[in-house]
């Protein structure tokens, strides 16, 4: 499954409509705390769902979420 999804996503990245009008690659500053909370597992579900929708529209921002998750590796998530 991993190889399949990677193949499809990379194909779309190369040939998709977004190629010409790439969405903003920089994550807006106001979104960064939410990405960090998401990475820590402390973002409430409604906000998490909203953020997932936003990341669906801006797939390049997913890299920032992955980076946050790597940063918090080993950090104990806060109790909610």
């Amino acid at each position, binding site marked *: 499954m991993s190889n399949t999804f990677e193949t*499809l996503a990379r194909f779309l990245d190369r040939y998709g409509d977004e190629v010409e009008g790439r969405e903003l690659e920089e994550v807006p500053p106001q979104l960064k705390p939410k990405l960090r909370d998401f990475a820590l597992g402390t973002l409430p579900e409604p906000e998490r769902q909203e953020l997932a929708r936003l990341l669906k529209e801006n*797939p390049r921002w997913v890299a920032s979420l992955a980076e946050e998750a790597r940063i918090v590796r080993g950090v104990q998530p806060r109790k909610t």
Partner: protein
Amino acid sequence: MSLQSGQLDNERLLARKCQQGDTEALAQLRDTCHTALLNILISRGASHTEANDLLADLWADCVPGNEERPSLLEKFSGRCTLHSWLATVATNRFIDLKRQQQRRPQVNPSREDGESTSFLARLPSPPAAEKESGLVDLLRGCLERAFSACGAEGLLMLRLVYLHGLSQRELARMWSCHESTISRVLSQAMADIEKNTMQTLRQNDAGLDLKWEDFVELCQTQEIGFI
């Protein structure tokens, strides 16, 4: 040297010989690939006649003409197998053929003196670049629709795990759920993408009969082979 890289080296060498017009190499290429390509085209919806005609053109285009008409194999980058690349080229041409058949109204045969009077017959053929894009357009259209129909959280999980290398355990922490839930959502999201892709494919191109594995392979070949 791995078996696969050895095979790719051999194929690059064979392709280079064909580009230079080596008749033995061209015959070897045809002997090795013809039957398999014929079966692929037929399995993808071509009639026996269509498949044979497409392959006759394909083999003819592999023979170098002059400077203005180099061998088709000049476009082979050597980053996938020659067989996969030829299968993609043949499928691309088959899609173009089907689309031309769908667009073209049935016209009366041209006059007996051979001079065609129909407007369609006098239209210039599309430029080569336009011809090559039929398959990419088709694959892209199906995939964009499938990704768009996929749930946002499932798609996000797929990206995090398979593009950015996070573990399912890390995702379970982010979503505050059990790993088995993550695994289930990933499988469901991937199944949805497959289902919606194939549904759109069937709606778009009635003449093309691709299996999911064929679709993925064509995406892969386009990604690595046409650079």
